[in-house]
């Protein structure tokens, strides 16, 4: 079995929002919608204050509350773990949005454009009325993943089979891959690093991991440093 997951290395993310821009460009989301959002968080108290950038979005949970509550079966989970929305089935009740603990879902009722009332040429070309009045969210670029797999490419390794946000990351903070494959890039990263998932206590089994330190093995950090 395959389970596609995403990893954000919080030590590397510089908060440049390139992933956000790449996602918007790839998926043509309206101005107020950010499927790949990067939080700019201040933690600690003066003088020990740190700034942390936290990429978020749909966590593609293994037990997604959005799917369970969806009355129309528009939200489903694929065998590879990607949570999808069928825009033709969705009624736009927003129940999924209040069920999602990650604020990853959006509903846009009216067409809005980046520069005023008129769409730019790319916006006009790619405008999809099926996405109005329904729930939308990050798809893990499932179309790219699927197309890449058909070509024999490896998602997370080959850019043509990898989500746009991961491809665009200037700091190699974002990673994508199959967690069930012990030799995958993401499995190795999870093995070599300390990590957490957001709101794990809710039992949603998210598919989005955050790296925050090197893992400790036999009293040593996996990069050779001492604990």
């Amino acid at each position, binding site marked *: 079995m395959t389970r596609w997951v995403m990893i954000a290395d919080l030590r590397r993310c510089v908060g440049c929002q390139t992933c956000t821009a790449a996602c918007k460009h790839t998926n043509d989301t309206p101005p107020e919608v950010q499927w790949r959002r990067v939080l700019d968080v201040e933690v600690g108290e003066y003088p020990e204050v740190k700034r942390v950038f936290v990429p978020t979005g749909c966590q593609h949970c293994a037990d997604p509350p959005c799917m369970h509550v969806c009355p129309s079966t528009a939200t489903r989970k694929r065998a590879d773990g990607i949570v999808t929305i069928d825009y033709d089935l969705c009624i736009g009740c927003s129940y999924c949005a209040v069920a*999602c603990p990650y604020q990853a879902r959006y509903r846009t009722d009216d067409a809005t454009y980046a520069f005023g009332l008129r769409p730019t040429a790319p916006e006009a070309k790619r405008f999809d009325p099926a996405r109005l009045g329904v729930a939308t969210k990050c798809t893990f670029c499932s179309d790219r993943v699927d197309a890449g797999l058909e070509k024999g490419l490896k998602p997370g390794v080959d850019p043509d089979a990898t989500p746009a946000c991961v491809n665009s990351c200037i700091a190699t903070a974002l990673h994508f891959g199959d967690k069930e494959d012990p030799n995958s890039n993401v499995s190795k990263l999870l093995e070599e690093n300390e990590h957490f998932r957001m709101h794990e206590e809710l039992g949603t089994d998210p598919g989005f991991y955050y790296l925050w330190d090197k893992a400790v093995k036999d009293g040593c950090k996996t990069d050779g440093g001492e604990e």
Partner: protein
Amino acid sequence: MSYGPKPWIQLNWDVRAALNFILGGTGGGFLLFAAFVPAPPELGRAALLLGLALVGAGLASVWLEIGRKLRAVHVFFNPFTSWMTRESFVAVLLFASGLAAAWFASAQLAALTALVALGFVYCQGRILRASKGIPAWREPTITWLIFWTAIAEGAGLYLVFAALCGAGVPPLAAAGLVLAVVARGVAWSVYRRRVEADLIPQARAALEPAGRQLYQLGAIVPLALLLAGGAVEQFAVVAAPLAGIAALAAGWRFKFVLMVRASFNQGFALPRIPVRGRK
């Protein structure tokens, strides 16, 4: 749009969704008393229709909120896990049995309607409980708080309805109100104790006064009025509907606050801080 890790009020469900819980809950509770309080056939029929109208108004209100109104029938597609689908199925059954009960003036069908109405308000409680993104809603005891609030509102409205129809003070409705406001107070107390730690101060600040009103305006005032009405017979016809209005107002206010003012999400959590620059 810039969001930090701090919670903010969800904007997906507004007052239109709240009205489904307010009117649907009151209508559901009211149907219970419409079915079991002894009344002349015309009054019984009018009560059933009023209860159904309230439920229908609540559903119509939430229908106004959905993004794709013409696809509303898709709401029936997921009975396996979605309480919204289950609520919809129960609503269909409720209208079928309620209209049949009113048409045939059947006590058995009215009893069935009451049972289904209880199922309807239970579904409403479960809808909130399944909303994992909203701490004030996902607390499991919300189900019984919503349930007993609906019964209290229904009993309160029935006392008002009976007074307006010149039917006096139905003892069953008065007894139902006493039981329901006490049960609602207990349910609020249990819910409050369990949800407190999960709520941010702003959510607590919004919820607390409305919850306190469930005790004061929603329980103490109706109980006092009913007691006074029991002691002074002439006062009873005024006291009972006033008690009903108090119970109703407290319940409606609480649900409005729960849905619209205290519905903060939980924001984002950062349980670990990245360790940077270590050699």
